[in-house]
């Protein structure tokens, strides 16, 4: 058992309101630079939709991730022999039009134009060429446009759905969508690291953050192709590839990453997971249907004495182990088994987990008579004369689950490598928590009924309360349990700090050329 620690994340999709605050926070801190304008280390997609870059999930196009054939797992697009013999051949690389051409507007023209007969306009100009362009695409061009032929219906996750099922999904008044915020998954088996010919990408030992060394990167761009989540981007100005760094300078200072800190819906959780590095290989080689179980299996119980001993043996700090015991991610992923990795079939063992969305799929639209309610309104209030209700209540236990507006298959393709039962299991848990809390706060559901629901979902009342607390009430310290960084230990592993003790004071990277 080789225990390592990984800073890991959970995104609760039921809570995401699609406001893109996370994307903006990230952009303002990291990618508001020349050559990085088109990069969105954090982006929010509307699902069903094609995402960013367009159709990133379609590995027929981009050839990212791993593929298991004849019992061996190899990179789909490149590999050792193929990578060496085809090192100048990288045809599945996304082009700028697969992302979008970044642009700004000539705002100064609005105030500096000479007086004339026409209103001055701010023309869009490309941030790459500097010339006026027609804006063809944006980073969230399909925002809220699910169901449209160009976006919703081109979603690669629809691939195993019959034409009828797809048609049902996109019918007016039945159509539903949800948001999928994405950052780098900081995978346990990262395809980007495996594909890099320069060895510039590495997974940081102390917290598992995957980083690209900007001094070693030689712009092969194999990582851009190899990452199935398309979260490695090539900076055309610096000639280096870049990716999400999980705001490691903030984490080392005990702050949550910018996207998580700024999250309006408070959907994001961050904490340490301990895992067994010896079992990564066997987990990666599992069949598609066992992939997620294998993935969750190598995440270890931080309360287990053996695990703690082994963690100490491999140099995991006591404070990190302590942090792992309070990790909200461990609760969501292992204790409550509510969260799933995105596209486990890419076999990168992503360490960002998603709680599947329940709200958009469970509600029904009912015909009701609103006239009575309307009469009670103040005459100056807006009078609602449409007689329907967006209803999330239920009298049947799992009634709405069988009448969901989404085929389970769609979410299974997205979050459980095609396993529909797994999605249904999560939905039952989410539903059970609602029914349980409804009994507690409203009291219109009987105790027996609630107990039956909880039992069937595999939860206890305490667990349901815990889920409720972490979902609805959690404070900053509950959502982000960040271990102390211990950078001094990491540095001491590489350098002897005694060498620089007594040298010129702080702030000098090299000796100053004056004084004595």
């Amino acid at each position: 058992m080789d225990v390592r620690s990984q800073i890991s994340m959970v995104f609760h999709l039921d809570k995401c309101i699609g406001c893109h605050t996370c994307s903006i926070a990230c952009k303002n801190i990291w990618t508001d630079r020349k050559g990085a304008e088109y990069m969105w280390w954090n982006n929010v997609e509307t699902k069903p939709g094609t995402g960013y870059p367009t159709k990133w999930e379609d590995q027929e196009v981009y050839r990212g991730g791993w593929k298991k054939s004849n019992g061996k797992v190899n990179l789909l697009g490149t590999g050792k022999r193929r990578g060496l013999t085809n090192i100048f051949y990288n045809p599945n690389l996304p082009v700028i039009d697969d992302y979008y051409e970044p642009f700004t507007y000539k705002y100064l023209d609005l105030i500096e134009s000479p007086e004339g007969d026409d209103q001055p306009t701010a023309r869009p100009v490309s941030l790459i060429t500097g010339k006026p362009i027609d804006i063809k695409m944006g980073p969230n061009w399909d925002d809220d446009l699910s169901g449209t032929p160009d976006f919703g219906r081109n979603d690669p996750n629809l691939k195993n759905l019959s034409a009828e099922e797809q048609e049902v999904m996109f019918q007016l008044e039945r159509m539903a969508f949800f948001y999928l915020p994405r950052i780098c998954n900081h995978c346990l088996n990262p395809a980007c690291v495996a594909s890099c010919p320069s060895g510039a990408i590495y997974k940081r030992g102390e917290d598992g953050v995957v980083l690209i060394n900007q001094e070693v990167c030689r712009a092969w761009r194999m990582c851009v192709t190899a990452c199935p989540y398309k979260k490695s981007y090539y900076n055309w100005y610096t000639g280096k590839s870049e990716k999400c760094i999980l705001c490691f300078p903030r984490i080392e200072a005990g702050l949550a990453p910018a996207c998580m800190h700024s999250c309006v819906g408070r959907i994001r959780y961050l904490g340490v997971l301990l895992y067994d590095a010896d079992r990564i290989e066997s987990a990666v080689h599992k069949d598609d249907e066992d992939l997620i179980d294998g993935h969750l299996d190598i995440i270890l119980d931080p309360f287990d004495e053996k695990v703690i001993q082994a963690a100490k043996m491999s140099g995991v700090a006591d404070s990190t182990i302590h942090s792992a015991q309070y990790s909200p991610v461990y609760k969501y992923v292992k204790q409550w088994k509510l969260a799933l990795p995105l596209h486990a079939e890419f076999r990168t063992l992503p360490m960002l987990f998603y709680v599947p969305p329940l709200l958009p799929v469970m509600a029904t639209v009912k015909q009701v008579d609103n006239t009575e309610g309307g009469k009670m309104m103040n005459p100056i209030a807006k009078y609602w004369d449409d007689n329907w209700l967006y209803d999330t209540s239920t009298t049947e236990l799992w009634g709405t689950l069988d009448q969901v507006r989404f085929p389970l298959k769609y979410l299974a393709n997205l979050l459980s490598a095609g396993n529909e039962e797994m999605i249904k299991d999560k939905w039952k848990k989410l539903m059970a928590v609602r029914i349980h809390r409804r009994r507690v706060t409203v009291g219109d559901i009987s105790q027996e009924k609630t107990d039956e629901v909880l039992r069937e979902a595999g939860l206890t009342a305490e667990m349901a309360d815990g889920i409720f607390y972490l979902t609805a009430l959690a404070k900053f310290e509950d959502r982000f349990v960040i271990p102390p960084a211990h950078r001094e230990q990491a540095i001491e592993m590489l350098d002897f700090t005694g060498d620089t003790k007594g040298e010129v004071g702080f702030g000098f990277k090299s000796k100053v050329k004056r004084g004595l």
Partner: protein
Amino acid sequence: MKSIQFPAIAMAILFIALCNNAFPQNQGETIFKQVCAACHTIGSGKLVGPDLANVHTRHTKEWIISFVKSSQSVIKSGDKYADSLFKAFNQVPMPDNPTLTNDQIEGIIAYITEKSSSPGTSTTKADLPPGDVHRGQELFVGNIRFANHGAACNSCHNVDMSGLVSGGALGKDLTQVVSRISVTGVQGVVAGLPFPQMKQAYESKPLTDQEIADVTAFLKEANDLSVSAQAGNDIGEKMLFGGISGAVLLLFLFSLFWIKRKQRTVNYTLFKRQISST
């Protein structure tokens, strides 16, 4: 001492040459065959120099006499026709014949006049046996001696050819001599010895017909090699077109081999529909 010796030797050689160049009087045919036939025909076409048939109708007797005696001084005097003639025949100067008397030249003209009425008679050597290039080369360099012990050609002449020892610089460079004066011209020169130095060297030690054929064959080979080496243009053009069509073919094959590559943006159909402002 040396500065006095050299002109003395030169004078001696010149004197001997002049003595040997003495011809019996009024023997036009003999003199023509000895002096002129190496380079000229009467009615059988061009050789090293022009065909002399009806030359008496084209020029005055005086002009011919002065040209035969010293062609270069006629050219230098500004005679345009002589100049154009010189240029038309590869600028090979006609050797001066100062020893010929006016009578002797008139005898030659008389012979030409007589022969011009019955043209087509060959005045050159009879057909030579086929030549052997390799033996010709050996003879030229001197590895094989001439049957009559004449000096090897490369004592005075040079031929640029790989694997060949450089020759002397006294005589003309013979690398492209066949281009300049044609195969028959070379044969005529070697057999007829119109140039005084050549005459001096070989008059008493003439080459056999076989040797002439061999040396000529070698010179033709040397000439052909040298000309084809210099004329790279034709090959260059072929290389260019061959290269371009080869590259096009290769690119086509590559495109077939890698036909499954991602060929355009996934947003292509979307972008194609969009309205452009330009």
